[in-house]
């Protein structure tokens, strides 16, 4: 039984313990002349900006778009968004580090969010998560993460594979799950939430 570290304090900002680099120049808005941005990404970001009375509301959709292009919120991705939106990378980093779906470190290609919150945990999610993580190993195809309640407790224990909800999952499903992802197939079609009817029998006429 390992001791619970007594001085492990709480902070919700990663890098809380890392001292600021005072040798660096203050963050500036990236110069378009020296920051190439893919046309499609620029168009997508500008499309989002046009939807809101205040363009800053587009920060979240812009970061998600850049993450799709680069695989994670890499410094290059942040630079590109900052350049298009005319903001500093620091402002975007502040936002990116807050949200669970924005990856601030390089990750595997396909996200497998395994819910390990209370309802799924009561149905064996913790063992499922361990099994998926072990089976995936360090294969760069997979980004296996334990996630908070995904809103699919009716198919507990479950996972979201690149946004597709599948469950209830058993330990026996794990090899097929990863295989389907590797092969680019529909993941466990019979277990997809999209096909599930309403549990309320009175809802059917």
């Amino acid at each position, binding site marked *: *039984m*390992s*001791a*619970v570290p*007594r001085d*492990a*304090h*709480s902070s*919700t*900002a990663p890098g809380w313990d890392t001292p600021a680099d005072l040798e660096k120049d203050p963050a500036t808005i990236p110069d378009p002349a020296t920051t190439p941005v893919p046309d499609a990404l620029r168009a997508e970001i500008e499309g989002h900006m046009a*939807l*809101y*009375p*205040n363009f*800053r*509301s*587009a*920060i*979240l*959709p812009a*970061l*998600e778009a850049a993450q799709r292009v680069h695989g994670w919120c890499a410094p290059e991705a942040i630079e590109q968004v900052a350049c298009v939106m005319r903001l500093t990378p620091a402002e975007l980093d*502040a*936002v990116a580090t*807050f*949200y*669970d*779906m*924005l990856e601030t470190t390089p990750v595997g290609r396909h996200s497998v*969010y395994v819910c390990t*919150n*209370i*309802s799924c*945990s*009561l*149905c064996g999610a913790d063992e499922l998560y361990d099994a998926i993580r072990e089976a995936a190993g360090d294969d760069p195809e997979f980004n296996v993460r334990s*996630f*908070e*309640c*995904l*809103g*699919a*407790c*009716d*198919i*507990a224990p479950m996972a*979201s594979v690149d*946004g*597709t*909800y599948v469950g209830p999952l058993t330990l026996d499903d794990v090899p097929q799950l990863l295989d389907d992802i590797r092969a680019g197939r529909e993941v466990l079609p019979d277990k997809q*939430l*999209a096909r599930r*009817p*309403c*549990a*309320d029998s*009175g*809802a*059917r*006429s």
Partner: protein
Amino acid sequence: MTTKLLFDRIDEPGLSTLDVYQRRGGYESLRKALAMPPEAVLHELEASAIRGRGGAGFQMGKKVSFLPKGGMDKYLVCNADESEPGTFKDRELMQKNPHMLIEGIVIAAHAAGATRSFIYIRGEYVLQADILDAALAEARAAGFVGERILGSDTSLSLVVHRGAGAYICGEETGLLDSLEGKRGNPRLKPPFPANQGLYQGPTLINNVETLATVPTIIRIGGAEYAQLGVETSTGTKLVSVSGHVCRPGNYEIELGIPSREIIYGLAGGPPAGRSVKCWFPGGSSSPVLTGDDLDIPYDFDSMAKAGTMLGSGAIIVVDDSTPILDVALKVAKFYRHESCGKCTPCREGTNWTVKMLERIDSGEATPMDIEIMASVQEHIIGNCLCVLGDAMAMPIGSMIAKFRPEFEAHIEAARARAGRVDVLAAVGSGAAGGGALAGAAAGATTAVAAQGAH
């Protein structure tokens, strides 16, 4: 058989398309509402006495009436960030009947005088957001959303905005900050969003289910809607049931039916041979009830009277196969993760609570840790800008209150496993030593609480 207002033939193929939705009478309520002055629509919402379906249970009609009159920019925000553990009702509504939500939004905007609206949907709901995008495109093309809707004076823009994974963005002011492009930190209230909300303008924020009910209220009339349910909890409610039950899922019920009917009657109760140990009536943020509380009526006031809350309408059932410590630790870890970090009692209190629960499991705790933990919960409640801290403190506090002997036994067993029995012996046997220390800690807690009252 309960009247199905939201779940009426919810699985009909193609219901998410404008074609089928209109064939079933969809957007007739919008036509009816646009022909009424906004005050008349507001009157129906008030007459329905519908209480917010997202968790707070505040009367919707009253909230709409708080928005100031006048021609300034007003906003309507639909809170589709459904992230309360155990809750998955809005998911099914948005996935299978998105037009009902869109219609409800336009009618509510007409009543409130809002000109711009946003659906803030959690980023994890990819399928549901895609379906909403498609439905919105159809609605726009048909003239139900946009400039001068159906030839009326009402105009409304609607944007589907996807979140990126943060429970606190379901808190209304955290949502507003997130929607403005910042970290989702909640704001001090007052001022309330009705006066200073999105972009500091008057904003009406409502839950998906609340807004999705609006077309029905307009169709049958507010007074008719208020006939369903019970006096202070009118109408029907979607309840998500999960955990140790045979038939987890969403069920539409009339508010006020016995909770037993939902847990056993609809969801099949725990598996054969097991019994209910404890259950959360309103998501993991609600104080737990036990197997003795199954006959309490499922409505806002009865739950409040029982020392808990109806919340989002999510019932999580834990049966007797699960140690209470596992439940407490899982719940506390969630709130520690999701704390935005702005307020000290929540940021630090959630962390301390997790560590104390881990120490109980690792054999490093003494009975005094239970007192300290209970004290920490008390000092979180009511002391932060939002109730995320309370959302951990209330259920944990209730578990300590209702399962204290089990926590104490867990401490002893863990200490024995870790070979720490000698320290407990030095302090004194379980009752005497633990009691003296517990008494001292409780005395200190009372003193602090008394000081705090001044």
